[in-house]
């Protein structure tokens, strides 16, 4: 019986010729990552097992959630992981003002690559599956164990194969594709499983689209999302990554729990209503409803704070004004992207349109700071979760959408169709 792409990577890292879904294995880790929330909590657990990390090249601690430190406790947490990074002589020490949101910075700096087995103490660690790696989110005890031993237990997942066909229309991007899929299969539609994306259509998905899609695999309950390595991946790795990589491909006779076809040409701009990412509606359905007036727009995060996302948002906001009653937070995901926004004139477009242009951080995405909502407020956000209270008061409301839809909504003041509103003025 053949193996899926994920199973092959896991087998190789467990030193086994063959693994099967459901099997419990212990696999070697290539990258172990934690952040300013999960890292400090992992350190005392780590110390119960070891004095030194298993390999200072392979451990990364990223300050991004409550940074720039929003209060004293956050400052102490950031300091704890920074001190630890220096004490342990980590090869890559990440500090505020020089990095960005973890799931954007790790690929950008080439810290993660194809064929690796990666864990992060953050659920959206599944993002790096876009590069053809096995990458999954774990908790603090797991991460402490990973840092101490370089190994971790896994239950080998079965998989759903998504056969991607067709070509998306201009205002449809990775975010719409994944919101469409989660709407189809539900927020537990891929529970414990891998989501493997294949098919002709993936050539029309840029690396940034793939990062966005894999980022939200967890919102369907998946263990990981994964794309095959193609020319686009190779080109991306060549540009960003020095490490050697290994290309794994699924066996022709790999067994999948089910196969789902996604025709990109039929995917419409999507909006996920409160309070679940699976609560998606097409923009056409939204246009049939009474207007949904909004108070805030967030464009950023590990889901959609990459360069192409900000370019798309800017193309809609160019020479436009944000509606009077709406505040807009644009948050580039990394310092490099932040600088590029300045160099390409995007920062000017955003500020002239009336947006706050903020320093890289998770910030408003999880209601930490830089865009927390009051009771009754509504936000269109390019982030990945619209749970109760995620961005502030438990009676505030988050609508998840693409950067294009978020930008169009900022201008309109209500949830709006990027095909008809904004710069490209159509």
């Amino acid at each position, binding site marked *: 019986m053949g193996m899926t792409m994920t199973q092959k990577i896991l087998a190789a890292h467990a030193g086994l010729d063959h693994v099967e879904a459901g099997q419990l294995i212990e696999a070697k880790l290539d990258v172990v990552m934690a952040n300013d929330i999960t890292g400090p909590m992992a350190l005392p657990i780590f110390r119960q097992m070891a004095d030194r990390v298993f390999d200072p090249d392979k451990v990364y601690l990223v300050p991004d959630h409550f940074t720039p430190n929003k209060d004293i406790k956050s400052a102490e947490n950031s300091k704890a992981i920074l001190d630890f990074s220096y004490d342990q002589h980590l090869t890559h020490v990440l500090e505020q003002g020089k990095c960005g949101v973890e799931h954007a910075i790790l690929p950008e700096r080439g810290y993660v690559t194809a064929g690796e087995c990666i864990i992060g*103490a953050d*659920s959206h660690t599944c993002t790096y599956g876009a590069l053809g790696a096995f990458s999954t*989110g774990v908790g603090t005890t797991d991460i402490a164990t990973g840092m101490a031993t370089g190994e971790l237990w896994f239950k080998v997942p079965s998989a759903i194969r998504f056969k991607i066909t067709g070509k998306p229309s201009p205002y449809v991007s990775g975010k719409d594709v994944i919101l469409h899929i989660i709407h189809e299969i539900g927020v*537990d539609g891929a529970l414990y499983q891998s989501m493997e994306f294949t098919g002709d259509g993936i050539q029309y998905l840029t690396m940034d689209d793939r990062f966005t899609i894999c980022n939200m695999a967890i919102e369907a309950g998946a263990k990981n999302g994964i794309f095959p390595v193609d020319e686009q991946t190779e080109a991306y790795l060549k540009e960003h990554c020095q490490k050697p990589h290994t290309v794994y491909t699924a066996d022709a006779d790999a067994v999948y729990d089910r196969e789902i076809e996604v025709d990109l040409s039929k995917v419409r701009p999507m909006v996920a209503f409160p309070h679940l990412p699976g609560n998606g509606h097409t923009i056409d359905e939204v246009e049939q409803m009474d207007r949904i007036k909004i108070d805030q727009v967030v464009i950023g995060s590990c889901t959609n704070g990459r360069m192409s996302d900000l370019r798309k948002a800017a193309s809609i906001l160019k020479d436009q004004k944000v509606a009077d009653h709406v505040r807009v937070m644009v948050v580039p995901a990394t310092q490099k992207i932040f600088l590029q926004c300045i160099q390409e004139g995007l920062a000017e477009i955003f500020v002239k349109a009336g947006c706050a242009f903020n320093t890289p951080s998770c910030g408003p995405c999880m209601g*930490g700071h830089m865009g927390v909502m009051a009771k009754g407020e509504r936000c269109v956000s390019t982030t990945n979760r619209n749970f109760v*209270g995620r961005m502030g008061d438990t009676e505030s409301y988050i609508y998840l959408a693409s950067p294009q839809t978020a930008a169009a909504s900022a201008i309109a003041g209500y949830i709006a169709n990027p095909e008809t509103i904004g710069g490209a003025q159509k």
Partner: protein
Amino acid sequence: MKARGHVLKYGDNVDTDVIIPARYLNSFDAEELASHAMVDIDPTFTQRLQKGDIMVAGKNFGCGSSREHAPLCLKTAGVSCIIAKSFARIFYRNSINIGFAILECPEAAEEIQEGDVVNVDYDSGIITDETTHKTYQAQPFPPFLQKMIKANGLVNYVNEKKGTKA
């Protein structure tokens, strides 16, 4: 190992943001986290909960973030066991890793009601609702995970295996 307690019942997709909201995550003191458990979905939770009580929930319990604060705050608050139709995978791992036994049993999760007195035998996976006198068989843990739960979590398991510290 056994648990016995009153049931507090919840629906599907109870996510980690309501189990322990992000605004409290700049602390990782277990007692402090426990004092905020479930506050956004059930503000009276910590007052109603008695040590040893059992949570029963629908599908995909613990979905959302990887925060281990979620199972930790429930365990620390005094929850002895969670029975659900299914668990989100990171919540499942985290619970086992901290030696917090959680059981998947769709039938029990459907039928057991708020306030029932329930008895759970982890070794056999048998769940008994003493109020309705019904019994259910939960999926037993595979041996590898049983070993980890018996060791009271992954840290002890690793240390036993390595024969190093602790």
